[in-house]
């Protein structure tokens, strides 16, 4: 539906232009595609979208959606610590995300309060502290919108290399431990009885998830990052019957949504994070309308 709204907006704007402007618009689009930043942005979004969908498939089943949201919000704290220390925030963010994720997991296991309530405390406080720290830096106030909602220009070549490596690691990890992951997701004691090391598997998954969140923050932004992990997986759930299909469709839809969103962001000069999330929402709504939904017996 959102996709059709996009289409209507495009058609409406096109109708107002003369043939000349259509031509100039077309040239602009072609030119845009030839810019190196656009190549990086598209490749980066496809890579991170694919990873988001892949890891997201297990994230939602294990009810870690809110956990990934917390990781995303806390990333702002990592970025602001990087600024305060005078380091490149991009490089501070990844180790910070991993340590933070492991710390939160340990904390959640040690307390008896409700997980969602604790996560709420963690994400709101880390977001608040992050914003307060950033406000000490006058020169960065303008950049907050980019941090919150993503910046299409932020994708550097090093990010692309890191994303590619991380995607390969995630795919190998999920591939080689797939059966253990499925059984663990279905029934933890049954997995332990079969010799699956729950703590090792869980830690590895959370480390990878935090790296995926950390690397995707630049394009999607702190506030929307969890949608990037959650929406493709939910759409895939509506479209799939078997577990194998579910994971593949989730990864594919993640990449598709990110690519469409990134293009829309470039063409209409919109912030990249909201554009990607809206594109993913459109895919999710289409998945809800898909005829084979009945087979799911949800």
């Amino acid at each position, binding site marked *: 539906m959102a996709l059709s709204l996009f289409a209507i907006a495009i058609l409406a704007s096109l109708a107002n232009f003369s043939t000349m402007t259509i031509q100039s618009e077309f040239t602009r689009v072609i030119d845009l595609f030839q810019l190196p930043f656009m190549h990086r942005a598209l490749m980066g979004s496809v890579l991170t979208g694919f990873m988001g969908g892949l890891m997201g498939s297990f994230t939602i*089943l294990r009810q870690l959606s809110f956990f990934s949201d917390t990781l995303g919000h806390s990333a702002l704290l990592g970025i602001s610590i990087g600024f305060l220390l005078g380091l490149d925030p991009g490089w501070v963010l990844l180790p910070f995300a991993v340590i933070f994720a492991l710390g939160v997991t340990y904390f959640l296991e040690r307390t008896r309060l409700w997980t969602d309530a604790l996560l709420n405390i963690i994400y709101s406080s880390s977001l608040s502290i992050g914003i307060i720290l950033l406000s000490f830096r006058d020169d960065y106030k303008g950049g907050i919108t980019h941090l919150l909602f993503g910046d299409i220009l932020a994708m550097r070549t090093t990010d692309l290399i890191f994303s590619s490596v991380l995607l390969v690691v995630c795919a190998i990890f999920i*591939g*080689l*431990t*797939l*059966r*253990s992951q*499925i*059984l663990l*997701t*279905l*029934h933890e*004691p*049954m*997995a*332990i*009885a*079969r*010799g*699956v090391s729950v703590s090792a598997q869980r830690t590895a998954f959370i480390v990878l998830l935090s790296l995926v969140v950390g690397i995707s923050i630049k394009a999607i932004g702190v506030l929307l990052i969890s949608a990037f992990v959650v929406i493709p997986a939910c759409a895939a*759930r509506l479209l*799939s*019957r*078997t*577990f*194998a*299909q*579910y994971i593949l469709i989730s990864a594919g839809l993640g990449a598709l949504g990110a690519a469409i969103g990134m293009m829309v962001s470039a063409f209409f000069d919109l912030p990249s994070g909201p554009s990607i999330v809206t594109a993913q929402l459109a895919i999710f709504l289409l998945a809800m309308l898909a005829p084979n939904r009945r087979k*799911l*017996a*949800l």
Partner: protein
Amino acid sequence: MNDPVLVVKGLTVYRETYAAVQDVSFTVPAGMDTAIVGPNGAGKSTLIQAILGILPYRSGEVFVLGQPLSPKGKLPPAVRQQIAYLPQNFLFDRRIPITVREFVGLGWDRLGLQLPWAGGQARRHAVQQALTQVDAWHLYQQPVSVLSGGELKRILLAYCLVRPRRLLVLDEAPAGLDVRSESEFYRLLHQLKKDQGWAILQVSHDLDMVRRSCDRVLCINRTLLCQGTPDHSLTPENLSLAYGPEFVRYRHSC
């Protein structure tokens, strides 16, 4: 084959600050059906979870198929492969997309690092055989989420069957079934036990079933109160020790 599949010596398991199971010793001989009975909170589930390595134990020794289980629950993978565990009320999130065939296949896998397509033909064949044996091959493409209670239990038995095992550990496996499905479940379980030579260790509340079909019984209320054949162990005195005198009076007036 005549070696006991399970030897438990002086097992003590703590749940937080109290000993939920204290100094319990018993053996499960190969091919025999052993029942654990006792009131709620007696530590029956705790006991089997410690034996499977799901809960750590404090002291004592456990040998599964001759191999020691570490207090933290470590056991060689080759031994793990020969045990299956059916939990109490196999409740899972019904929103998880998984078909019957995929689920039963999980019972076949070795669960170490392996390629997702490993096994291929052999895996498919084993799954088909297991599902046929529990009369559920027609369900193989169904999502597990749409199965009825009785069908789900049959699929769980197929999960155990899909690879040769020597020990089955059941925690009130037929819980949630109606009377008819429950007797169906036990009929199938005992048939498979005979065919496969499984040893079974099962927690049960159904003393009549235990009398009828189990070879041995352990009465537990945190400590082991008695063990032996059902006729020998399920005497009014022992039941009174396990469940309290009120229960025995009620049973005798029935």
